[in-house]
């Protein structure tokens, strides 16, 4: 996509970032002990903590990723919202209060509360690091996507900018500033999503979403070709250059005024028609053409519109304002145009082409466009769907940056109340994502190169100020989540690994210093990964973090809380098996095979989400290893003494 700098957005952006950094320095002056650095001294009010929970959780994956995936794949994006929220049920009913009673600062402290085992310390700190890093990747990818339209910067510069600001925030203050930043951002995000949804419903549907010319909606060309023996031989006012068959599609390259463009040969009521496509051509000399022209010509358009609007069985041009129910049911009966991608070589050039695919609203509002579980389903695709839903359900309660938030409040009762407030806030927000995602799909605002910008770009169609505020808050969203993740990671390194595992017995001051150095190192690593994973939907990437957390951490937590015979060796082995098995499945998945350049269809297996295999493996491991290697006598004796 080609973006111009918005100066209004720029002003809001700097005000917001200034506010966030200022807040962290203010709290930084109050941070002197390791307790206040890693757990805000356990003094946060449950109401603030609840909204901060929501702020932590409504990361780039929720705001950018879910809206984007709903805009591109319809109901399949909403599956993430359903699963992400369901995960809180595990957190609330099984984990929140008991976990609060266990530890001091970190997930490792809690797991190790009665064993004092070095194996648990090592495995749990590794797990915290790996899960946090997998959660950091999508945040950084989202940050890069956000900065492109906001500041007109390339993706890598956005990633670098977020990384630098977050390192400053975390190194200056730790958990207290992170909590207040998340509180501010969580609250603003929910209010702004309400405003955006209000605009979507007020505008309703239209076949020509140009918003009085403000969004620059482009109407794609359709040409009538002359065909002989399945070959395009002529098109009025255009010169035919070449024709390519890709899968079951045929694409034709035509030239006019010295500019070559690709068209999709499609059927229509009046016979064959050539529909204009969008292309990004990587040429052999390294230059890139957008729709056959250099970037500066601005011929690469935002997309996503309706081709038919049906109200009470009648086709209409526009609907006017709609209620939430009317909005959803009208979309179900209508037809929208999605843009699907194919890649193919053209001589020495590589062409990435996006063609129009009219899709019935009824299909768009059912699962199946991304996760094939109905028509065209295979065993792999069904297993993948189950695996995703399992990971989302079980992952939330095992995310280290969510778990550490239980330590920022005073009592288990406060931990419970803040969790419930978080569920209500997050649940309300996820219902809004449905409207924001669908609104993006039909209002001509989508960037075909990255679905992540759907919601902010939709806001831009409704006005520069709304776009500016939403982009600034979305950026703060990334900042806050990344900061929380880096605090969790630095806690794992400084407190768990160096202080406890290596038995360095650091002073309080030294522990905070080491934590800050660790935060810096993790931040640099996250920046590099954020650049490497550009272009992948952030919700999809977060799905992996959930799967690793569910496999590595949850079996250990649940067995510790609910099975007396759980041993230290069982816990450590389960964490390691959970990490290794989920990582192995992810690194050999079709998406990664595509990233390696080996082709997704050649991957070892077709499972994108590992939890279906890795979670049961970790459960079996903690069970059998605990039976084979029971608790050390000392631990068992202490427990028996307490019982008697």
């Amino acid at each position, binding site marked *: 996509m080609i973006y111009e700098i918005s100066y209004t957005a720029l002003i809001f952006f700097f005000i917001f970032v200034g506010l966030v950094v200022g807040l962290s320095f203010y709290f930084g002056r109050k941070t002197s002990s390791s307790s206040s650095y890693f757990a805000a001294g356990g003094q946060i009010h449950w109401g603030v903590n609840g909204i901060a929970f929501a702020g932590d959780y409504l990361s780039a994956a929720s705001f950018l990723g879910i809206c984007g995936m709903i805009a591109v794949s319809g*109901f399949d994006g*909403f*599956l993430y*919202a*359903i699963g992400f*929220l*369901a995960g*809180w*049920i*595990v957190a*609330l*009913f*099984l984990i929140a*209060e*008991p976990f609060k*009673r*266990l530890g001091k600062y970190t997930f490792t402290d809690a797991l190790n*509360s*009665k064993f004092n085992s070095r194996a648990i310390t090592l495995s749990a700190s590794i797990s915290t690091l790996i899960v946090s890093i997998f959660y950091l990747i999508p945040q950084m990818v989202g940050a890069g996507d956000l900065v492109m339209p906001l500041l007109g910067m390339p993706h890598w510069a956005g990633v670098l900018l977020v990384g630098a600001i977050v390192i400053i925030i975390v190194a200056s203050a730790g958990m207290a500033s992170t909590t207040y930043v998340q509180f501010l951002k969580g609250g603003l995000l929910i209010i702004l999503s309400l405003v955006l949804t209000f605009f979507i419903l007020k505008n309703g549907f239209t076949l020509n979403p140009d918003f009085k010319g403000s969004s620059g909606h482009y109407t794609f060309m359709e040409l009538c070709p002359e065909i002989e023996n399945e070959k395009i031989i002529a098109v009025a006012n255009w010169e035919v250059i070449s024709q390519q068959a890709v899968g079951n599609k045929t694409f034709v390259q035509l030239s006019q005024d010295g500019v070559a463009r690709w068209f999709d040969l499609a059927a229509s009521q009046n016979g064959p028609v050539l529909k204009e496509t969008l292309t990004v051509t990587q040429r052999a000399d390294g230059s890139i053409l957008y729709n056959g022209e250099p970037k500066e010509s601005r011929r690469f358009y935002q997309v996503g519109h309706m081709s038919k609007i049906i109200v009470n069985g009648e086709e209409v041009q526009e609907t006017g304002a709609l209620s939430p*129910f*009317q909005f*959803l*049911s009208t979309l*179900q009966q209508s037809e929208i145009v999605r843009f699907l991608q194919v890649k193919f070589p053209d001589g020495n050039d590589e062409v990435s082409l996006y063609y129009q695919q009219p899709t019935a609203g*009824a299909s768009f*509002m*059912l*699962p*199946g466009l991304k996760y094939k*579980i*109905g*028509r065209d*389903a295979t065993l792999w695709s*069904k297993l993948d*769907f*189950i695996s995703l*839903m399992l990971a989302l*359900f079980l992952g939330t309660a095992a995310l280290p940056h969510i778990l550490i938030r239980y330590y920022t409040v005073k*009592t*288990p*009762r406060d931990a*419970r*109340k803040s*969790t*419930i407030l978080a*569920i*209500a806030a997050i*649940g*309300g927000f*996820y*219902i809004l994502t*449905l409207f924001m995602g669908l609104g993006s799909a039909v209002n001509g605002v989508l960037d075909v190169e990255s679905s992540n910008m759907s919601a902010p770009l939709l806001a831009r169609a409704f006005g520069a100020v709304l776009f500016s505020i939403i982009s600034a808050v979305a950026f703060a969203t990334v900042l806050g989540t990344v900061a929380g993740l880096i605090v969790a990671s630095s806690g794992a390194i400084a407190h768990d690994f160096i202080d406890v595992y290596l038995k360095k017995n650091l002073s309080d001051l030294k522990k905070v210093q080491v934590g800050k150095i660790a935060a810096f190192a993790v931040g640099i690593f996250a920046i590099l990964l954020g650049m490497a994973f550009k272009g992948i939907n952030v919700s999809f990437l977060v799905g992996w973090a959930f799967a690793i957390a569910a496999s590595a951490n949850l079996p250990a937590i649940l067995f*510790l*809380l*609910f*099975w*007396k015979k759980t041993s230290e060796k069982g816990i450590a082995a389960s964490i390691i098996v959970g990490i290794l098995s989920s990582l192995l499945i992810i690194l050999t998945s079709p998406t990664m095979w595509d990233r390696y350049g080996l082709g997704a269809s050649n991957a070892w297996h077709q499972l994108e989400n590992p939890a279906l295999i890795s979670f049961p493996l970790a459960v079996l491991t903690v069970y059998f290893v605990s039976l084979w290697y029971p608790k050390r006598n000392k631990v068992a004796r202490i*427990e028996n003494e*307490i*019982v008697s």
Partner: protein
Amino acid sequence: MHVNNTSTEKESLTKRKSVLGIRLFFIYLICYAGFVAIGVFQYELLAIQVLGGLNLALAYGIGLIIFAVILGVVYNYYCTKYEDEADAEPSNEIEGGGVA
């Protein structure tokens, strides 16, 4: 719950809340698994219009989100009630760290 309780909560209260949490968890789990099972085994059902012109997929999905919030509120109501009852009772239990 068999872990050491480091807070000053009575063990019987902890156990009561834990049992409630587990029951509510399984109620939600069944509803969630039902959604996944319909998707995998009876996909066509998801297209049926059920509520205000919405298909089952949308109604079930939005319903799961709202149901989670309702269960959370119910859980908090009962936990608070148990805690208030425990606070009102004369303490016969040793506080701070029993084993369930």
